[in-house]
């Protein structure tokens, strides 16, 4: 399939080039990768249904009991497949990060959570119903029969209960009541839920009977997903953290509660980090080691130093300004597509609010553009909440970028990313940057504000592929 797609596009490109405006070749490559991954995940769902059909499943719908049982098997197959897709999306696969970015992958992961749960709950309910009809027994009696007479069913019920716990704990309202670490610990139960549900699939599921091809396919799926999780979530981050020996080399005060951390280590170039990317950091001090925080690079990575700029937000990250130098730092990453790799056009517009300036600053440092080809917009509720403003001014002067600083509170009740008076005067992204339609727009700031900027960019007819933003609320 891969070969087919690439042949298809290489043939078409020369014919297209003269008519359409040039699109960055890196963008084309990325979209081909994204297309391939999406097609593969859709086909994986079709494949499990096909396995059911190949086993003669299509004729097992003639009686109500058969129909319920068949639907139950189907929903179990599709639900499990979606669950595996979700696990892969959260496994930090480099391919997925490169194609969609970590935040987009996690958004898809989240959106699959409820459908997968409903399918698996349906799987249980339909099979209990189908079996009860076939056996002519009541639902509770049937559940009891399943638990006592069928192999591995108690574990399967435990798995389903765990899955319900995981999904319910992730519903926004519930999630807000817990601290991130508690929620995350509950979330890791999903691994246990998947593991304990495997035995009954192999023993009770006649479709995946011993020696059949589909059994090997199914096992290969699980092995592939488990291998990816182990490798990319645990082994690689651990090995990198040990190998690069990252320590805090200096803490520079930027503003009250805001600091830049300089981190040094060995052979950091081998990480292949790009400006605009983030790592998930863990600082090994008594109060902080149990928390991991995603922070973006605030300087283009080079040599053996990485720099992040962070605002201590509540809890333990408020302790970051007092971090002693020499503190060991472990990390996962680099991640994210808020980088030069996402570029589609030669012009660039960088829009930041508050501490969102961090990745914007590193992008400004190393993004490719001609002098005059870049505009930087810095937003803050008040001038005191503009961070790294001096550094940004110096960088803009050096690289020939236009800098606009806009301070002031946003109007209440209106979705504007600009201050009250500017919004009232009808100022928009298009009026601030007339050629925004031909530029890549990078936006970093709080969620609601980012949404407002993105909406404004869309209103200015900036094509979707030119709008880049990253969320950190996954």
């Amino acid at each position, binding site marked *: *399939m891969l070969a087919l*797609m690439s042949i298809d596009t290489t043939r078409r490109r020369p014919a297209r080039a003269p008519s359409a405006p040039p699109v960055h070749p890196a963008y084309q490559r990325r*979209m081909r990768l*994204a*297309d391939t991954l*999406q*097609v593969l995940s*859709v*086909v994986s*769902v*079709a*494949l499990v*249904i*096909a*396995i*059911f*059909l*190949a*086993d*003669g*499943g*299509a*004729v097992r719908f003639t*009686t109500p009991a*058969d129909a319920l049982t068949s639907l139950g098997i189907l929903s179990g197959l599709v639900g499990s497949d979606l669950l595996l897709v979700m696990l892969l999306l959260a496994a930090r696969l480099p391919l997925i990060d490169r194609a969609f970015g970590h935040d987009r992958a996690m958004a898809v992961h989240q959106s699959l959570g409820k459908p997968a749960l409903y399918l698996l709950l349906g799987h249980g309910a339909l099979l209990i119903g189908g*079996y009860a009809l*076939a*056996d*002519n*027994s009541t639902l509770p009696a049937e559940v009891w*029969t*399943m638990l006592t*007479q*069928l*192999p591995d069913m108690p574990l399967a019920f435990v798995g389903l209960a765990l899955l319900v716990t995981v999904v319910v704990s992730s519903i926004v309202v519930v999630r807000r009541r817990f601290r991130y670490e508690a929620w995350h610990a509950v979330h890791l139960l999903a691994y246990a839920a998947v593991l304990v549900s495997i035995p*009954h699939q192999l*023993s*009770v*599921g*006649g*479709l995946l*009977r011993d020696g059949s091809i589909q059994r090997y396919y199914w096992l290969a799926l699980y092995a592939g997903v488990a291998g990816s999780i182990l490798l990319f979530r645990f082994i690689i981050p651990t090995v990198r953290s040990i190998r690069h020996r990252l320590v805090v080399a200096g803490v520079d005060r930027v503003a009250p509660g805001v600091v830049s951390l300089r981190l040094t280590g060995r052979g950091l170039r081998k990480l292949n980090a790009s400006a605009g990317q983030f790592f998930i950091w863990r600082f090994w001090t008594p109060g902080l080691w149990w928390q991991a925080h995603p922070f973006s690079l605030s300087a283009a990575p080079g040599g053996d130093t990485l720099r992040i700029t962070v605002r201590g937000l509540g809890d333990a990250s408020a302790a970051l300004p007092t971090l002693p130098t020499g503190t060991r730092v472990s990390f996962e990453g680099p991640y994210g597509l808020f980088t030069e790799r996402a570029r589609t056009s030669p012009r660039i517009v960088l829009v930041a609010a508050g501490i969102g300036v961090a990745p914007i600053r590193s992008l400004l440092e190393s993004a490719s553009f001609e002098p005059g080809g870049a505009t930087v917009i810095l937003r803050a509720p008040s001038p005191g909440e503009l961070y790294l403003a001096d550094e940004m001014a110096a960088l803009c002067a050096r690289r020939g970028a236009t800098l606009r600083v806009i301070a002031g509170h946003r109007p209440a009740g209106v979705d504007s990313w600009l201050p009250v008076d500017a919004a009232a005067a009808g100022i928009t992204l298009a009026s601030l940057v007339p050629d925004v339609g031909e530029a890549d727009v990078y936006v970093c700031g709080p969620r609601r504000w980012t949404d407002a900027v993105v909406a404004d960019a869309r209103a200015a007819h900036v094509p979707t592929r030119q709008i880049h933003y990253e969320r950190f609320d996954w």
Partner: protein
Amino acid sequence: MRKRASAFAALASVAVLAAGWELGVQAGVQAGVLSPAGTAAGTAAGTSDSSGAASPGGAPAAAAPAAAAAPSGTFTGSAVQTRFGPVQVSVTIAGGAITDVTALRLTDRDGKSVAISNRAAPVLREEVLSAQSASVQNIGGATYTTEGYLQSLQSALDAANF
């Protein structure tokens, strides 16, 4: 998802589903080739006797004297098709009594069927041995297994002129 990706995903999915369907139909055709024989045997058994001579394909056994006297030996019943797989039993008769029933094949379409038949078979055997006939009670939760078991048993008994 881009249009091209959606189109490609839809196309590939349809192809995969069609292949699965085709394989399923072929499997069904193969099963169909086999099943008439099975059903024929089943019905022959159901209508009892008539050409009972065809059935006792079973183990050696002392030839059943057609008319009177007590038959003895091992007689294999016909394979009865059920929704959860074929069921076939053989019966051992000695001195005019049923001394043993062996399940040759039990419902095994999936793990559940296997569990059910494993539970039902010993119970059925006991009941048949004590009732000395195929008219015993249905085992709760194992209706299909029971029906297949007793039908196959009856065909074996018919063959033995028991």
